[in-house]
């Protein structure tokens, strides 16, 4: 099809017209064969100017009632978190479930859980960028924001797990009056500090760099002078100059290139917290890839959950189409199978290694007192995503939503199984015990969801939730262009200037 013929994209109005398969134009290909072109990433015959309106709208108008209800609920849970944390600091670690022999409990579980959720954001923005997966443009902004908020949630847990959270600054190597007494750089726990803080800040930089041109778009739509100058400052006065785009694109590519190994390194280092110990069930070389793939799995599940809301409540169905959801479902199924493969490999290695302790721990994991947790984990992570072998299921909003929730339940229990089952049966039967969460453990876990959703709701309220400039780049110019005008569409300042 030559550039000047009518685009089939203009006719795809909504999800119901998408099939997930390429559009075939008979006889339009080279040598008279068929030409297959992928379905549009943006439906509804949108113009570039429509994109601005549709996406900035939510940041420009007074929030809807639904937003206020969601925000009130999230804020309530955030309040629960703040209250629980204050009480935890006041009363001490005795109020939570950890004790001898299970000294790592819900805080470590939640930490790994939230860090894992964060990984999909960087994966979508960096890895899919390097692989030129254009469908990422619809979801990357929200996924990156999700990463930041998940890392914020995760960051709380190691600090409160210290017990004396007010000494958290001791984790940072700085010249001090205690010797100076330094941290031990041989410890994976020290590596964690560097990995998580680097990850958080690099994700922030990546997100913000991506946001710059869109902040300029919001600025140019703004009518209130304060709002205009605020967004102008936030976008560093971006004007779309191609001399700036040149450096911008180079830096964006570099950030993607650096974030890709970073995202793999972070969960690898998190897994080192376990793998470098001598606990049966933790001391395995499979942990780094197993943790990384589990993180991507849970993160994509969370992206699907959030995108379901964004499609439903924020009218993003034209930008995050069913095809996007289907692509994510495919990744969910693939990573789910990899996670299931890792579970099986662990069992094989426990048997093949001939280690008595390793063998016992795995029998105990699957059939011991915590077999219920193992069953939840295995069912939700390895079996449930198999439903996505059916295309119909991959394109069914409710199925996607329910599976995405189940996967995150399963992934939380995966960390529960790893942390608790290895600890509750130590080498000596005298060091055997059971672990259960107290009401404070639950309160802090639920509260962290409150923090996450509060931040996410503020994000959708104040910033463009879809990467406007990137989405514009993947639209068909023939459909998206507007008619030429004699003058550029004037903004308020120009109009005032011309009248004067």
């Amino acid at each position, binding site marked *: 099809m030559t550039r000047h013929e009518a685009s089939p994209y203009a006719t795809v109005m909504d999800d119901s017209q998408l099939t997930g398969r390429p559009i075939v134009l008979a006889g339009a290909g080279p040598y008279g064969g068929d030409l297959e072109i992928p379905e549009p990433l943006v439906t509804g015959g949108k113009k570039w100017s429509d994109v601005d309106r549709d996406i900035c709208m939510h940041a420009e108008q007074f929030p809807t009632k639904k937003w206020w209800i969601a925000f009130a609920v999230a804020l309530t849970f955030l309040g629960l978190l703040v209250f629980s944390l204050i009480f935890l600091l006041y009363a001490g670690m005795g109020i939570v479930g950890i004790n001898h022999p299970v000294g790592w409990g819900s805080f470590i579980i939640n930490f790994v859980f939230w860090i894992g959720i964060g990984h999909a954001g960087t994966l979508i923005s960096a890895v899919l960028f390097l692989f030129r997966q254009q469908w990422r443009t619809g979801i990357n902004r929200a996924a990156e924001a999700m990463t930041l908020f998940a890392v914020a949630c995760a960051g709380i847990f190691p600090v409160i797990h210290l017990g004396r959270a007010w000494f958290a600054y001791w984790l940072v190597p700085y010249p001090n009056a205690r010797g100076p007494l330094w941290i031990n750089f041989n410890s994976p726990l020290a590596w964690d500090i560097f990995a998580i803080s*680097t990850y958080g*800040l690099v994700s922030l*930089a990546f997100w913000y760099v991506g946001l710059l041109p869109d902040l300029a778009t919001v600025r140019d739509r703004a009518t209130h002078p304060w709002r205009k100058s605020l967004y102008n400052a936030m976008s560093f006065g971006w004007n779309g100059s191609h001399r700036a785009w040149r450096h911008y694109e180079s830096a964006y590519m*570099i950030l993607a290139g650096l974030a890709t190994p970073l995202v793999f390194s972070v969960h690898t280092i998190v897994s080192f917290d376990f793998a470098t110990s001598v606990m049966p069930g933790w001391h395995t070389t499979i942990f780094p890839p197993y943790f990384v793939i589990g993180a991507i799995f849970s993160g994509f599940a969370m992206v699907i959950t959030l995108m379901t809301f964004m499609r439903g409540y924020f009218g993003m169905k034209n930008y995050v189409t069913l095809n996007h959801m289907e692509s994510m479902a495919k990744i969910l199924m693939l990573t789910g199978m990899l996670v299931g493969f890792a579970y099986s490999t662990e069992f094989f290695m426990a048997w093949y290694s001939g280690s008595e302790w390793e063998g016992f721990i795995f029998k105990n994991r699957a059939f011991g007192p915590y077999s219920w947790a193992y069953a939840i984990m295995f069912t939700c992570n390895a079996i449930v995503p198999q439903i996505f072998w059916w295309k119909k299921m991959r394109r069914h909003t409710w199925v996607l939503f329910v599976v995405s929730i189940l996967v995150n339940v399963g992934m939380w229990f995966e960390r529960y199984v790893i942390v608790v089952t290895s600890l509750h049966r130590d080498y000596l039967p005298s060091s055997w015990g059971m672990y259960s969460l107290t009401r404070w453990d639950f309160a802090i876990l639920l509260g962290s969801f409150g923090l996450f959703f509060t931040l996410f709701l503020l994000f959708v309220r104040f910033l463009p939730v879809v990467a406007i400039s990137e989405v514009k780049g993947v639209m068909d110019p023939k459909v998206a262009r507007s008619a030429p005008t004699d*003058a550029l569409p004037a*903004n308020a300042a120009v109009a005032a200037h011309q009248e004067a």
Partner: protein
Amino acid sequence: MTPTSNKGVLGHFCEPADALAAAAKVRDAGWKHFDFLTPFPIHGMEEAMGQKRSWIPWVTLVLALCGILFAQGLQNYVMVFDWPMNFGGKPHAAWPSYIPITFEAMVFWAALGSALVAIVAGKIDTIPQPPPMLVKTGATVDRFVLWISATDPKWNAAEAEAFVKSLGAHGVRLVDVKEEADA
């Protein structure tokens, strides 16, 4: 920080392909102080505008090396010189266990530094830009705006305007903010 020019000529295109074709013509006509203001980056524009590849990767390289040196320096200083401690009889300079932090520090310096330098470079390594209020709206929405600044060595107002018109640009106008204000 960004240089601006009050005089120049503006015109716009409605499609990236048209802007790309025009850019090559502007380049070949020998203009130096021109720019395209676009809502999204256009593939191939660097070449069409006659720009070299961005120098940001060199900044990244230097910063990455700084990060590596910083992390290695800190860890070796602390673990070998300042307070060497015996962990299970292992060597003080246990380089394999310094690798994770070295890697993280490298990424930290390289990524954050490159992002910052790229933002500043976009402001400084540029040609005099049009007065902001004249182009803001279109260039972040759906217009691909061509700007030729009067600071160009071969500037001639009538010639520039005729040239931009000959490229098929829409809404071609000579800009002279000071004169307009006076009038």
